[in-house]
């Protein structure tokens, strides 16, 4: 076996935290991690947020984000321990031997400089190439990464290309100086599924063709399975399991890995439509004030009591706008909405309190959906007080009942949102919606910001609550695995229109229209070789290209 390119031994990383009202203290966030990476191989680092995967990735460039410090162990690149080298040597390493691709290309490119200038900067600065050669190499990489018009795309500014293209430009930036190792930090997480697949394929080809080694960091096991040779599963700064992709996916040893692999396997039986829909959307067309473009075009959907309608689509397809129209935040320019047999007025201020109570909403970002200066008790208690006039002991009792329903115990009433984890926050938001005893809850991407295992818990909770409270959900999401898990009927949206609508069994079975086929096939599956299969059998290019 050849000598490893990257050799990490006993890596320990610490950080200083400043808890509110307490003294600052040092904590350890990575507790001694070992791994090797051979030249030209790809190692996937996988774990939930807070597992330390990005921190480890950056440590392989001897870098710690603000407040983070590498406290022990060794990181050898090409046989040199870079943690012991001076800052000059480290500088010579970064951008030449090891490069980095970050999650958000949009935030990482300088909007004031042309793409070409930024892509070639490191290579020229490190003296690897002259300007001419660097630019020639960049064009070659643009072509390899499947960017349109590779000769000229470098002359554009970052805002003139799409998100998926920019992410590929960033990959070109990382590959330009002919590095030995590239650290990919969640490169496709911020992209739509249909775009993600193209970027993923481009990255995979580029890695193969240039023979570079890579650390691929992501929380999505299905994605990492497509590009890596080996996978390391991390949890809370410790290695849980290490093995080849085949071994991790097909025969995981540890319980935690098994949970990750089997995530999103909720079985949900489709319910049949009943007679009276709780929500009937007819011919809704809407546009934002001051624009001359219809964001929604003639939308017709129905939702029955105690059932779930999933609205699926990419970003920009108008699915969140549909929620704004139903809640009355954006009055439609045409069409009508019937809720529980009565027609809803188009705008919020004119709606009777009863309509507001029966139609609740849960947001994507639980962080911003709760007032940081109110306790959980106040947040859940307010609807009780506001709609039902509950006070004192009666209110406390109901709050506790709701907390029990969302599977949070006692003692949460007096906590502030900042003292809750992401999943707990979303649960409190669910309790706030339930407190109003609604007939319909609009769930706007409620699990998108959560780690897969936590999201799973939230979905199970929602399904359970639906059985108990007989509430209907309008479930807006871009994630088809979630849709399969929770919906009874599905509306697929594309550029402001519903392109496919019906019961789940019907929507999810062939024959597909082109867009639904693209969407369905783009969801990464947890098996080897999935990426190649899909690319070979696609009918339509993704819109984000």
């Amino acid at each position, binding site marked *: 076996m050849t000598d490893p390119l990257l050799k990490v031994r006993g890596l320990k990383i610490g950080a200083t935290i*400043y808890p*509110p*009202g307490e003294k600052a203290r040092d904590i350890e966030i990575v507790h001694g991690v070992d791994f090797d990476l051979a030249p030209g191989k790809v190692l996937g680092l996988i774990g939930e947020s807070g597992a330390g995967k990005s921190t480890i990735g950056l440590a392989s460039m001897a870098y710690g984000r603000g407040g983070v410090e590498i406290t022990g162990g060794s990181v050898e690149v090409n046989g040199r321990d870079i943690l012991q080298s001076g800052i000059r040597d480290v500088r010579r390493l970064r951008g030449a031997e090891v490069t980095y691709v970050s999650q958000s290309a949009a935030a990482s490119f300088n909007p004031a400089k042309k793409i070409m200038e930024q892509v070639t900067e490191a290579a020229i600065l490190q003296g690897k190439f002259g300007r001419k050669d660097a630019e020639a190499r960049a064009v070659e990489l643009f072509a390899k990464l499947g960017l349109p018009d590779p000769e000229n795309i470098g002359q554009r500014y970052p805002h003139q290309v799409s998100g998926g293209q920019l992410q590929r430009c960033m990959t070109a930036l990382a590959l330009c100086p002919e590095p030995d190792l590239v650290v990919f930090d969640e490169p496709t997480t911020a992209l739509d599924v249909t775009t993600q697949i193209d970027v993923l394929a481009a990255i995979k080809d580029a890695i193969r063709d240039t023979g570079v080694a890579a650390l691929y960091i992501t929380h999505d096991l299905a994605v990492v399975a497509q590009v890596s040779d080996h996978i390391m599963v991390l949890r809370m700064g410790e290695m849980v399991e290490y093995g080849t992709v085949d071994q991790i996916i097909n025969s995981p040893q540890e319980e935690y890995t098994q949970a990750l692999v089997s995530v999103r396997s909720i079985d949900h039986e489709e319910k049949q439509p009943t007679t009276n829909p709780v929500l009937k959307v007819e011919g809704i067309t809407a546009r934002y004030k001051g624009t001359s473009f219809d964001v929604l075009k003639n939308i017709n959907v129905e939702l029955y009591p105690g059932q779930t309608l999933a609205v699926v689509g990419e970003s920009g397809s108008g699915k969140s706008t549909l929620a704004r129209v139903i*809640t*009355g*935040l954006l009055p439609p320019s045409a069409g009508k909405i019937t809720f529980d047999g009565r027609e809803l007025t188009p705008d*919020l201020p004119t*709606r009777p*309190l009863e309509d*507001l*109570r029966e139609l*609740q*909403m849960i*947001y994507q*970002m639980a962080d*911003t*959906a*709760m*007032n*940081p*200066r*109110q306790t959980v008790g106040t947040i859940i208690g*307010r*609807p009780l007080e*506001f709609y039902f006039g509950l006070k004192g002991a009666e209110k406390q009792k109901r709050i506790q009942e709701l907390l029990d329903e969302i599977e949070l115990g006692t003692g949460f009433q007096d906590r*502030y*949102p*900042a*003292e809750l984890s992401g999943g707990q926050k979303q649960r409190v938001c669910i309790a*706030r919606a339930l407190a*109003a005893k609604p007939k319909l809850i609009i769930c706007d991407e409620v699990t998108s910001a959560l780690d897969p295992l936590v999201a799973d818990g939230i979905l199970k909770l929602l399904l359970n609550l639906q059985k108990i409270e007989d509430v209907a959900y309008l479930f807006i999401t871009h994630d088809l695995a979630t849709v399969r898990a929770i919906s009874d009927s599905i509306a697929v949206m594309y550029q402001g229109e519903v392109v496919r609508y019906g019961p789940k069994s019907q929507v999810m079975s062939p024959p597909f229209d082109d867009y639904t086929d693209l969407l369905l096939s783009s969801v990464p599956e947890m098996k080897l070789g999935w990426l190649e299969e899909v690319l070979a059998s696609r009918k339509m290019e993704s819109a984000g290209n």
Partner: protein
Amino acid sequence: MRIPVAALIGLFFTSLFFLMAIFAPLIAPYGMAEVVGDVWEPPSDQFMLGTDNIGRDLLSRMIYGGQTTIFIATAATALSFITGSVLGFFAAVSGGWIDQAISRFVDLIMSIPSLIFALVVLSVMPTTVTILVVLMGLLDSTRVFRLARAVAVDITVMDYVEAARLRGEKTAWIIFREILPNALSPLVAEMGLRFIFAVLFVSTLSFLGLGVQPPQADWGGIVKENKEGINYGIAAALYPAYAIAVLCISINLVADWVLNRTTSLKGGRG
């Protein structure tokens, strides 16, 4: 919880000034307008800071003057914060033409230099303490309005405010329960600064003769009465200046500390 040294110093002087203001009649050795000695007597056992231009005890004048200055500044600041922030929040929450109307009106007032505006108003109105407080409070509230509106505009787009709207909450609840607690820390910091400006403003007016009217003492007035003394090497006019400086700095130290405390509170916004 530990109070930083700077804040302790600030707290000490601030409370000293406020206590002196509250208990002025008990502390002051002589009456406010009582002529007790010769003109511009040097400091002695009898008159700790000496006497002023007509032979009144300067220490007593300083104490009573502090009372007037601090009272007017406090009242004006309170008035400006109540009107400014309520209007600012209201404009931010309402949006649309209401926001436009209020904001443009405030711009109009702000385009006139406030000292000149105050001088014009005071030259036609009777110069009483009430008029002074109302005038200063309303003029200053335009600045508070701008800050409060800017802070509140950021908060009104948060999902929790939208959630409150969807719940059907009235504007008053949104302003006082959703926005105010989250806007408090920048406002408190601004309040310290505004109080200092109010002290300076009332002192300026008195120095120009349009503020607190004699024989009532206030710091700006004491400077005015004793400014001739500087030519003769008499320090009487400098004491109120010191007092103003010390008060301003100590209040700022306290405001800084309060700002730090409230921003770190439960991870709220800054």
